[in-house]
């Protein structure tokens, strides 16, 4: 089985086609059911976190080790030569001469694209400042496909901070390949930016703004919650506004049976713990899928062809 990702950089969700996304989603499901396979055997992966992010780093490093790969790298920039004034370009060229691929996170936007241009090995973006974090979107897609049995033609509500939330922007862009219907639920001050809505219109995708969380629940297959951050709103209005975007179990009484609630985690109070015990909660399974989505991506980038040693692979 050949794959479309071999030796590619994965910097931005916009770099990935529908075919690429389907490959990752299918491969992720296969790896989840097959158990560990030695798809990164004899491969050395550099895990370079110029900015600390324990959750993302552990997920990537688990994925590498589960596939039999080995790791070098660092978990924050404290002890690196970047602190001593070395350019990122120089650091990356040096690391690329040691490793077979580079996973990186960096606090500045554009850092991963720049690294990919100077590195002779594939670069996978684990977050570049406020710009892109494509593997978060991949695990979201994997989870949506897993809980709905499909990606095409779903109704999806995006809830919370839709203005600054890169997670929802990337998810909207990626799901845009699969003919979705979107409902945007946010405070007025944190509405989906016009350029995203313009892109969706240009792609022929249906979307509408819905006033309240309760109103949207019966209409959707996926309820994707995000946090409304205090510092984004007028402090006197915050408590009042934020409370309208908190999901509680009793609000789900009119939900479709296939509805699943997702959240990029960590949550604060936007999903009440009462929701955890309902069959609709899916955010913990979603987080677990981060490892499988990253395994799928890495196995594709590092192997020209993959022989699956088990029957029933899609």
């Amino acid at each position, binding site marked *: 089985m050949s794959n479309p990702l071999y030796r590619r950089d994965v910097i*931005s969700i*916009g770099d990935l086609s529908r075919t690429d996304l389907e490959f990752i989603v299918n491969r992720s499901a296969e790896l989840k059911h097959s158990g560990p396979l030695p798809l990164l055997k004899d491969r050395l992966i550099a895990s370079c976190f110029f900015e600390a992010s324990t959750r993302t780093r552990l997920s990537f490093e688990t994925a590498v080790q589960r596939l039999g790969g080995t790791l070098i790298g660092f978990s924050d920039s404290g002890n690196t030569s970047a602190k001593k004034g070395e*350019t*990122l*370009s120089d650091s990356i060229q040096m690391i690329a001469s040691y490793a077979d691929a580079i996973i990186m996170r*960096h*606090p*500045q*936007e*554009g*850092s991963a*694209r*720049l690294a990919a*241009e100077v590195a002779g090995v594939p670069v996978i973006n684990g977050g*570049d*400042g*406020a*710009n*892109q974090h494509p593997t978060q979107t991949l695990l979201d897609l994997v989870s949506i496909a897993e809980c709905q049995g499909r990606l095409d033609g779903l109704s999806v509500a995006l809830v919370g901070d839709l203005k600054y939330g890169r997670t929802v922007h990337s998810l909207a862009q990626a799901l845009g390949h699969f003919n979705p219907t979107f409902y945007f639920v946010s405070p007025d001050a944190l509405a989906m930016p016009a*350029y995203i809505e*313009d892109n969706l219109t240009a792609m022929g995708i249906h979307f509408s703004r819905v006033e309240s969380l309760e109103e949207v629940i019966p209409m959707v297959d996926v309820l994707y919650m995000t946090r409304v951050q205090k510092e984004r709103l007028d402090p006197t209005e915050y408590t009042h506004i934020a409370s309208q975007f908190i999901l509680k179990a009793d609000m789900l009484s009119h939900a479709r049976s296939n509805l699943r609630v997702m959240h990029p985690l960590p949550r604060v109070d936007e999903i009440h713990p009462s929701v955890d015990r309902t069959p609709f909660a899916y955010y913990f399974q979603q987080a677990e899928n981060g490892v499988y989505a990253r395994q799928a991506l890495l196995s594709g980038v590092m192997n020209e062809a993959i022989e699956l040693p088990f029957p029933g692979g899609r």
Partner: protein
Amino acid sequence: MSAMNRDKMLVEAIQSGTVIDHIPAGKGLTIIGRLQLKNAEVRLTVGLNLPSHGGGLKDLIKIDEWRFTESDAAEMALFAPRATVNIIEDYRVVRKFPIGLPERFVGVFACPNTNCITHNEPVDSRFRVLVADDAVKLKCHYCERAFADSLFIEQGSL
């Protein structure tokens, strides 16, 4: 006397170089700022608020000894999208072309996003030009943000 000759009389003719004509009145100084950024020694003759053929006013800049390429000209496109460039040799126009908006700007503008990696690294800035409904935006190849052209025009006037 033809209109073109009358213009030549208004500012002294040059033997060889480039004449940028039909610059919107008021934008001439911005373009001079950009030219001096590229070459601090450049010798310029300038006409501001000259009468334009179609009525109204225009600015005109003569640049000694520097024959513009299309890409030199394209750098000025945000400031004077309808200007024309005349290449002069031996006091005669040997080539004439309109300034067109290019598909991309490489190494011309600094990224308005202060947290963009291009500010810290030995790399040319790169912007793709997006035109929609008459609005021009420049999208940074690195940080992927799109910015209205007015942000760059402010940079240009320094």
